[in-house]
């Protein structure tokens, strides 16, 4: 066959593959928009971006991410469809604290050209602003004066038409393929019939993009589709170019290249799991968006993090408490402390969550009464309830609750959320009305209930 017909066929195939690949990418990423900013908050918290889709700023149309205390964090939060968006709101933190914030960048994600469509949301001129106090003239340091600080802007009009973005994407793919093929062709002396076959085999590498794109599409509920698709497309184009270059000088490499490329495709998918394990991402890439999966090992996790959310800090307190209490008794405390104490001391809990067929919420009303903000109660309601339950327990030949443990730890996330800890000073004031303080520690205080009758002979 004449060489010119070979070139025509290859050119036609190149156009076709360029169109298909560019179109697949476009279908996946069009109209996606992302807001990126850097934030550091003294007390940490959750940063959140709200999208107004015509009904105001709603929680359902928002994405957020936790930020650690005192560390700079770069956040990029995505919305899948910018066509309905009329406004954007950035909530840097969700509690009163000092924070630093960079100027948010609004980025369309449907362009293969990095930075095309980038727009800045000026912090000095937001449309709306709430609970914000500016601390520096340069506009990077702020203080949140309430629990709902935010900046809001109307969506800036697009600076490029969609058709131009689509055309540019297809042109980039097409140009890249043409360039890589003709660079490869420079190394080839023979432009005969088998060139078409080798070209077709080389196209299999480009078709890997369909494989990656398929995974990216399936995973769109979990991570940034546009970023994955763009990375996958560029990787495939680069691998394809190298492959053609290799094939042009050695046809035997075709099969070997396909096998190696298949290994690469397998490991590409697996690498997302790996990236989470070694701490490149702070959550599983394919886990539900913004869920914090806490079970897994991480390269960057350290013992202190785990210790501080367990009973380890209370070891010294618990050892001292052991000498001040009677064994085999029942105690009342918050959920977490109930487990911490029973795992270390010879006591039995009365507040546990349903697990392995156990569920015991018998003293929930006592806890509610202790946590009640009513200043007139002064513990009398809780004590009445305790006496009532003690009588019921004794009627069933069971010992009543003898101790109440109050955990004052304001850091442990399993403890600090409960009302006994939140209001421990008020709770202890109530407890002193009807119980004796037998231990006061760095974290844990123990009270022994003073029942009116001699329930305990020992």
């Amino acid at each position, binding site marked *: 066959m004449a060489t010119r017909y070979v070139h025509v066929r290859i050119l036609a195939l190149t156009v076709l593959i360029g169109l298909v690949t560019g179109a697949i990418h476009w279908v996946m990423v069009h109209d996606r928009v992302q807001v990126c900013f850097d934030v550091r908050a003294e007390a940490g918290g959750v940063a959140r971006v709200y999208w107004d889709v015509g009904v105001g700023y709603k929680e359902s149309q928002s994405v957020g991410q936790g930020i650690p205390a005192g560390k700079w964090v770069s956040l990029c939060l995505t919305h899948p469809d910018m066509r309905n968006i009329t406004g954007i709101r950035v909530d840097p933190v969700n509690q009163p604290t000092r924070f630093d914030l960079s100027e948010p960048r609004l980025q369309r994600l449907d362009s293969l050209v990095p930075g095309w469509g980038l727009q800045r949301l000026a912090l000095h001129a937001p449309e709306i602003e709430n609970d914000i106090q500016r601390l520096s003239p340069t506009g990077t340091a702020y203080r949140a004066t309430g629990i709902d600080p935010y900046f809001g802007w109307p969506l800036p009009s697009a600076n490029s038409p969609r058709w131009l973005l689509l055309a540019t994407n297809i042109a980039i793919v097409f140009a890249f393929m043409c360039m890589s093929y003709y660079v490869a062709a420079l190394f080839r002396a023979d432009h005969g019939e088998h060139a078409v076959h080798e070209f077709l085999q080389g196209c299999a590498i480009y078709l890997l993009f369909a494989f990656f794109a398929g*995974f990216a599409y*399936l*995973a769109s*509920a979990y991570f940034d589709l546009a970023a994955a698709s763009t990375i996958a497309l560029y990787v495939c184009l680069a691998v394809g170019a190298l492959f053609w270059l290799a094939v042009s000088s*050695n046809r*035997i490499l075709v*099969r*070997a*290249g396909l*096998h*190696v490329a298949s*290994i690469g495709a*397998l*490991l590409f*998918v*697996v690498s*997302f*799991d*790996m990236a989470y*394990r*070694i701490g490149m991402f702070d959550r*599983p890439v*394919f886990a*539900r968006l913004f869920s914090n999966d*806490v*079970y*897994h*090992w991480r390269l960057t996790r*350290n*013992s202190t*993090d*785990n*210790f501080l*959310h*367990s*009973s*380890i800090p209370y*070891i010294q307190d*618990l050892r001292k408490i052991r000498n001040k209490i009677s064994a*085999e008794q*029942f105690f009342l405390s918050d*959920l*977490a402390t109930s*487990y*911490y104490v*029973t*795992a*270390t001391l*010879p006591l*039995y*809990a009365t507040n546990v*969550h349903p*697990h392995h*067929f*156990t569920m*015991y919420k018998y003293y929930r009303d006592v806890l509610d009464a202790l946590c009640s903000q009513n200043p007139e109660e002064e513990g009398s309601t809780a004590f009445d309830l305790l006496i009532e339950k003690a009588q019921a327990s004794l009627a069933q030949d*069971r*010992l009543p609750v003898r101790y109440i443990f109050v955990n004052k730890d304001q850091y442990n*996330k*399993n403890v600090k959320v409960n009302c006994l800890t939140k209001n421990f000073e008020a709770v202890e004031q109530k407890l002193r009305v009807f119980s004796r303080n037998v231990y006061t520690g760095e974290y844990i205080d123990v009270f022994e209930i003073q029942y009116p009758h001699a329930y305990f002979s020992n």
Partner: protein
Amino acid sequence: MSSLLKETLSSHAAIVFVLFLHGGLIVALARRYIAIFESALVLPLFLILAFGVSLTVNTLVGMTFSLLSLHFSYLLITLVALDIALIVSLFARRACLAGLWRSSIFSGHSGLLIVIVVMFIIMIQNGGLIDILADSWWHMTLANKIQFHGTVFLDRHHLLGIEFTENDLVYEPAWHTNLALLIAITGLPAPLLWHSLAPWCVMLSLCGYYLFALVLSGNKSVALFAVILFAVTLGGLNAYFRVSPWPGNVAYIFWYFLLFQSFWMLSGWRQTERPTGSILGRLPTMAFLVDSFRRQRVALIILAGALVLILALHLAELVWYVLAFLFYGVVLIILNTSSNPNEHTAVLEHDRRVIAPIAVLLLISSAVWTYIRHPDRYVLISVVVGLTTLILLTRVVRRVTAKNIRRFVSLAVYTLIILGTAALIDFTHLRELFFPGDETLKYDFYAYYIPKWQIGLLGEVTYLPYWEHQLRTALLFSGVVGVVASVFLIVRERTRVSLFLFANCCIPMLILITPYLFTYISLFFPIYGVYRVQLLIFHPLVVAYVCFRLYKDAIRSLKPQAV
């Protein structure tokens, strides 16, 4: 040095003393009887056996103390005396000691050694305490109460202090007994010991998985790559290394070991001569057991010991072990392995002769048990009829001898099987794996998903598991890749490794998306929730093996050029 650091170091020393030392000494003494040590499997095997023997000895000691009403405070003296006696015995038999050094237990596994050392260091940092209130506290409480009361046999609920009711879960005692021994001997709080146990359990998990991968694939590189993938992907609960001190996860170590031991024995059996024409020859499973008893007696004892230990640690893993071989047996029955005879045909034929009868027996006995125990028998009848039809159809293909007709019949039968299977799959449910519907969030993690056709033709009620709570994260996407790769593997080659991995990837997946199969499995094994993840533990090995095969193919395709 801070007191916490001192206590952490003490906890690690205590773990070595209680969970490895006497087991290691006993294994060293018995080493010459254990034929496996002659092969190049010394390091991981030694660690697992030492751990297993120590667990068994400790459990027996703990139970004896409980029965004799001796308090656990005497344990330290007992174990020290035992260790001294073992050390004296070891020195008395210097041949054992000399042989131990000659075997150079660290040679031949440098890759594994590096991986386990790295993971050990990482896990010392990560530890076994997780930052939420999870099952671990329930287990620590139980161990603490066993230690306090000085008996395994508690008369009150360890957490609530109330009398046991018939609804209370009585946990398998072995792991909690060992934890109680650790608490009693060290005087350290249970949470600190629990935290320190994680790196040791992770190390053993990796060793177990390595042994299993090695014996199945027959290649050290594949085994090592599988172990690395196992650590970095969601192969199942065991990849959640931070929960490795949980009893179920400790049992996983021995579950992998059981798989290793079973395949090792199967391979050994194949190489021996068997009686032909006798009744044993016609009952291959029995022949295997009798032959194992004669020729691989120690291996059989180790296998039985591991089975009993799992029974005492966490029963579920024993079920997974049985299911793994049941799935393999089903695939061996259904797939034609002798159409193109090669060096693997004989292996598969031997496996089929041993495992297929067990698989059929298990299917029949589970069907009978379900028929007796459960009122919803239509599901059972449907599954039994379906499986019988499947087996009969595949037998038809094998009976046809004429080559041209056979191809046509084979095509027709397998098309029928694929279409029939596809008709039973709930594709809406499968879709929800990738595109979770909002409604799934309204239900509890442990609740069942209601399939499209909840009420079947015969009025039977079927259901499926939700993808939430670890199944989705296990499958997306390493798990899905593993399932697809196992299909690629079975299309490419019919070997023991490809059939076993295909069986243990695709059948569990099929169960998860087919209402009848899932309901049937749940009838005689009603465990759901996180345990379903266990069915997906083979994916790292599948991916590692497929990568290895592709790499070999790539090298082979380059060879003509070299010539």
